[in-house]
């Protein structure tokens, strides 16, 4: 049942197969393409600031799929039907978290290669950027899922989710982008730890949120 659910969720959210799910990647690349035009082609400036820009682009790209992530399946009665078949909300949300991460995390990491080329990011900085994104995107996915589930029953949910993500994602951003500025691989350990904590928490928080949404 879980495998079938994961397959269905992936089909829904994976870029190019799902419904408009390529948007985060396009957005991510677009930021990397536009940034040199905005600040000028000075290679030093780009190399110094580019890593931070990639992190911000990744963070904002993670917001884009949130609107559809949970709310739509509540409306469809999808979760209700799964519940009747004995699946708990926590399992549904754990599967959704995996599908959500798979549909934007690895793609963003791949998209960082052309983005880094555009922003003149090389060597150790590039390595830290890629490793940081690998460690940080699961955490961003977990925050996104919690927010999507919490705001699913609210009318202005989409606007609110963007607002909520900013403070919650700050620790990942500070340690992830901070690693680039200090050239310090150790802070990536913090990014990984925060991510792990969030991933462990997310299915429970999101599961409780969609149960609460039913009671209204």
């Amino acid at each position, binding site marked *: *049942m879980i495998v*079938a659910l994961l397959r269905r969720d992936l089909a829904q959210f994976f870029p190019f197969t799902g419904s408009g799910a390529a948007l985060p990647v396009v957005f991510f690349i677009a930021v990397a393409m536009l940034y040199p035009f905005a600040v000028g082609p000075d290679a030093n400036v780009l190399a110094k600031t580019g890593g931070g820009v990639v992190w911000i682009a990744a963070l904002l790209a993670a917001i884009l799929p949130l609107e559809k992530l949970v709310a739509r399946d509540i409306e*469809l*009665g999808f979760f*209700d*039907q799964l*519940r*009747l*078949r004995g699946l708990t909300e926590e399992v549904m949300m754990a599967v959704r978290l995996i599908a959500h991460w798979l549909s934007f995390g690895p793609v963003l990491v791949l998209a960082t290669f052309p983005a880094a080329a555009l922003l003149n990011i090389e060597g150790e900085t590039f390595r830290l950027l890629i490793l940081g994104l690998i460690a940080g995107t699961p955490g961003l996915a977990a925050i996104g899922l919690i927010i999507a589930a919490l705001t699913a029953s609210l009318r202005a949910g989409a606007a609110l989710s963007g607002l909520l993500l900013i403070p919650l994602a700050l620790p990942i951003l500070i340690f992830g982008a901070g690693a680039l500025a200090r050239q310090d691989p150790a802070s990536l350990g913090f990014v990984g730890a925060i991510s792990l904590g969030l991933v462990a928490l997310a299915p429970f928080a999101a599961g409780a949120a969609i149960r609460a949404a039913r009671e*209204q």
Partner: protein
Amino acid sequence: MQAPLRPLLEARDLACQRGERLLFRRLSFRLEAGTACHVTGANGAGKTTLLRALAGLTTPFAGEVLREGTLGLLDDRTGLDPELPLERALAFWFALDAAANTATLMERLRLSALAEVPVRYLSTGQKKRVALARLLSQEAAIWLLDEPLSGLDIASQGLVSALVTEHCSAGGIALIASHQPLDVPDMTSFAIEDYQLALPEGDGIEGWGEQSA
């Protein structure tokens, strides 16, 4: 077809609220294998709330629900991905429920011709038939049907009655919330209004109910 266990659906002193308002209270009934029950009530009286509480999707304000047997819920939501062609969208649930004879089922509900049509293009009545197909393939022992007849043409309405009759004669339980009468032999019925609080005259139950429905 049914689970080996004898299905049972029982409500004991059930009370449910919606928002701040108590919809009904002291509602008790017991449905044993092979029985059908028709719940009536005005819009907003709490039929859907009752069914969702019985399904275990919401926690009742007071009282308890006893269920033995697998549960199937039919409401106005199909649970199918709107972009997918009907056949593929249904295939997910058929696979999940390990359904057999899906072709016969599709034929009986006159859905075979719609297999390639994306779910979002289906009409209300067609969606209802799709939801029925999902319910039938689940082979649940207890059916909770929320307005199963709304949007259906006369022929399909007859089919729903026939399906419920078959389900009950095979030992299943059906609880049907509907405004329309169903032609099911030996079906009991109760009105949800009988369990409402006595309200002072002129209290705007209906206005509130319409809004929240």
